[in-house]
C-alpha cells in the first residue's frame, strides 16, 4: 500500500476520532487528570513513627531506647505545649514522664506513663504506640527477651527508599490509558459501520487489508502516544527508556487487537461501551496487584496485561533491566500479536 494512502486513512481516522466529543473529551481529560493526580501525590514515603515528649528532665536512657525502637522524638517545653501539638495534629501522640520516673522503674515502683493521642487517631495506631511504649519500659526494667531471630529479607530491602504511591500508580495509569483506547478505536470503527462509510470505502480500489492497517496504525499511534506522553511528563522514562517504550508499544498493539475484537462484536456505541468496560475491568486487574501486594494469584498471569504492568512497574521502580524482563517482553509480544491477528481476522470476517 502506498504511504500516501495510509497517511490519508490515518488522517481521516484521527479526524473522525476527535470529532466524537465523548472520546475526544475523555482522551484529553484522562491525560490531564492522570498527570495532575501524579503530581499531587507525595513524592516521598513517610515510614517513621513520631512522638512528642515532655519530661522535667529527660532520662537519656529513655530517649535512646525509643530512638532504638525506631521512633522520632520531639521534646516539648511543657505538658500544655505537648497537648496542643497533639490536638493540632503536629504529632500523632505525646508522652509525659514524671520526675524521678527512671529511679522508680529501678525500684519497681514507677508512676504511670501518660500517653496522649488525638481522638481521631485510628485505633490500631493508638494500640501500636501504647505497645511500643510498653516494650520500651520492659527493656528499661532489664527484663530479658529470650528469643534469637534468624531473619531473611525477601526481595530488595527498601527501608529508607520506599516507592512512593505515585510511582506505584504510574504503571496503572499508563495501562488505563492504553485500555481506554480500546473503547476509542472500537467506537471509531463502530461509528463507521453505523454510518456505512466503511462499506463505502470497500467498494473503492482500497483493499480490506489496507483499510485495517490504517485503523491499526491509528489505534497503536493514539494509544502509544498518550501512554508515552504520560510517562515522559512524569519522569517514568528516566530509567531504561527504550525498554519502557518498547513495552508501551506492545501494549498499544494489544489494545488495538482488543479494540478490533470489540468492534467485530459490537453493534453500536452503547455496545462498544459495554464490551469495552468489561475488557478494561478484566485487563486492569493485574494493575491492582501493584497497589495491593499479596492479592496476586498465579491465574492473573493468563491475562496479557499482567506482563505489561509487571514490566513497567519493575523497570520504573525496582531497577529491572532487559535481562530480567526478557520473559515478560516475549509473553507480551506473543499476546499482542495473537490478539491483533485475532482481532483483524474477526473484523475482516465481519465485513467480507
Amino acid at each position: 500500500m502506498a504511504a500516501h494512502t495510509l497517511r490519508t486513512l490515518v488522517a481521516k481516522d484521527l479526524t473522525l476520532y476527535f470529532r466524537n466529543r465523548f472520546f475526544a473529551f475523555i482522551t484529553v481529560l484522562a491525560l490531564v487528570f492522570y498527570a495532575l493526580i501524579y503530581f499531587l501525590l507525595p513524592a516521598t514515603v513517610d515510614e517513621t513513627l513520631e512522638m512528642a515528649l515532655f519530661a522535667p528532665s529527660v532520662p537519656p536512657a529513655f530517649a535512646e531506647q525509643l530512638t532504638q525502637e525506631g521512633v522520632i522524638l520531639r521534646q516539648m517545653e511543657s505538658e500544655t505545649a505537648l497537648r496542643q501539638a497533639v490536638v493540632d495534629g503536629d504529632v500523632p501522640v505525646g508522652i509525659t514522664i514524671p520526675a524521678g520516673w527512671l529511679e522508680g522503674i529501678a525500684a519497681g515502683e514507677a508512676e504511670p506513663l501518660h500517653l496522649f493521642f488525638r481522638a481521631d487517631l485510628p485505633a490500631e495506631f493508638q494500640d501500636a504506640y501504647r505497645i511500643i511504649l510498653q516494650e520500651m519500659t520492659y527493656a528499661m526494667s532489664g527484663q530479658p527477651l529470650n528469643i534469637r531471630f534468624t531473619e531473611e529479607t525477601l526481595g530488595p530491602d527498601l527501608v529508607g527508599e520506599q516507592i512512593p504511591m505515585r510511582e506505584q500508580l504510574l504503571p496503572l495509569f499508563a495501562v488505563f490509558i492504553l485500555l481506554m483506547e480500546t473503547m476509542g478505536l472500537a467506537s471509531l470503527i463502530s461509528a463507521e459501520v453505523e454510518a456505512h462509510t466503511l462499506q463505502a470505502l470497500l467498494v473503492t480500489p482500497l483493499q480490506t487489508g489496507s483499510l485495517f492497517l490504517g485503523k491499526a496504525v491509528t489505534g497503536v499511534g493514539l494509544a502509544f502516544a498518550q501512554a508515552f506522553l504520560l510517562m515522559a511528563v512524569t519522569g517514568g522514562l528516566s530509567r531504561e527508556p527504550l525498554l519502557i517504550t518498547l513495552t508501551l508499544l506492545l501494549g498499544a498493539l494489544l489494545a488495538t487487537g482488543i479494540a478490533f475484537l470489540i468492534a467485530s462484536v459490537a453493534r453500536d456505541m452503547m455496545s462498544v461501551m459495554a464490551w469495552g468496560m468489561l475488557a478494561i475491568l478484566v485487563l486492569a486487574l493485574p494493575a491492582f496487584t501493584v497497589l495491593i501486594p499479596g492479592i496476586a494469584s498465579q491465574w492473573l498471569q493468563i491475562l496479557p496485561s499482567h506482563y505489561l504492568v509487571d514490566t513497567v512497574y519493575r523497570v520504573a521502580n525496582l531497577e529491572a533491566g532487559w535481562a530480567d524482563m526478557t520473559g515478560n517482553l516475549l509473553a507480551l509480544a506473543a499476546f499482542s500479536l495473537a490478539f491483533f491477528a485475532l482481532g483483524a481476522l474477526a473484523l475482516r470476517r465481519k465485513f467480507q
Partner: protein
Amino acid sequence: MNPLQNTTQSVRRIAVFLGKEFLHGPRNFLFIMAIVVPLVLTFVIQLLFGSLFTGQPRLGIVDEGDSRLVTAAEAENAIRVNRYPAAAELRQAVAGGAVDLGLVLPPGFDDRVETGETVAVNAYLWGQSLLKNRVILATTLAVLIRETAGQEAPVEIVTTPLGDLQSMPWEERLLPFLVLMAVILGGSMVPATSLVEEKQRRTLSAVTVTPLSIGELYAAKGLLGFLLSLLMGTVILVLNNAFGIHPGLLLLSLALGAVMAVTFGVLLGHFIKDINTLFATIKGIGILLYAPALVYLFPEIPAWIGRLFPTYYMVQPVVEISQQGAGWAEIAPELAILALLDLLLVAIIAFFIYAQRSDRRLLPRPGKSG
C-alpha cells in the same frame, strides 16, 4: 371525558409503557451498570478498607506447636495476623507482600519461653515493608512473647484521647459516595440514556403518534429510574449495614433523593440529542453531582461547602439517619429543602413540556374523534 377518567386513562397508559420499559430496560447497558457498579464498588471498598488498607502491619505465622502467642497476636488490634500451614507457603506470602513479617514458631515454643530458655525463631521479612510496620510488628511480638513468658509490665500506661474529633473508618466515609452513585446512576442515567436513545433511533417520534403524551412518556421512564434508584440505594445501605433505626424515614429520604435524580435525568434526556453529548455532559458536570461526597471523605473540608450543592440534601439525611441515628426532628430542614428542590425540578420539566407543546396528541383519542 371527565378529569377523573382522563387521569385514569393517563395512569393506565403510563403503567403500560412502564411495563414495556421494565421488559426492555434491562437490555440497556446503563441499566446493568446502574446495578453492577454500586455493588462492585461496595464489594471492593469493603475488601480494601475492611482488611487491606487498615494501616495495620501484617504478620504471618506458622505454628508448629500450639502456641498461645498466635491467639494473643490475633486478639491484638495493632496488627493483623494470617496463619499458614507450612514455612514454604509463609515464605511465598512474604515474598509476594501478603504479609510484612513471617514467623515460624517451633514446637514447644511456649514451654521453652516460660522456662527462660533462649528460643531460635526463623523470620522472613518483606523487603518493601515500611520501617514503621517493622517497628510495630517487632515491639508487638516482643510484648506478646514477654507476656507468654509470664513477665509483668513494669509500668502502667494511661492513655488519654484529646480533642473532640472521632476516628471515622474509610468505609463509613465512602458510604455517602456509594449512596450518591447508586441513586444517581439509576435515577439520572437510566432515564436520560433511554430518552436520548429513543431520540437517536427516532422511536420517540413513533411513540408520540400514539395516545401517549410526552409527559406520560417522561413519567414512565422516570418511574423506572425512580424504582431502580430507590432499590439500589436501599440495597447499598443494607449491604453496608447502614439501614439505621428509622427505616421508614430512610426510605422517605431515599425516595425524595431518587425523585431529584430522576428529574435531573429527564431534563438531560429532554435537552440532549445524542449519546456522545450526554456522556460528555455527564463527565463535565459529574463532579458537581458527587462533590458533597468529598466533604464526607475529608472532614477537614468545611461542612458549609457541601451545602452549596443540591445533591448534599439528597445524601445528608441518609447519612444522618444511617450513621448518627438521627430522627425526623434532626433531618426535617434538609428534607424540606430536598422536597422543594424536587418540586422545582418537576415544575421546570412541566414548563418545558408545556412550552414545546410536546404533549399534544397527534392521533385522535377514543371518544374525541369527531
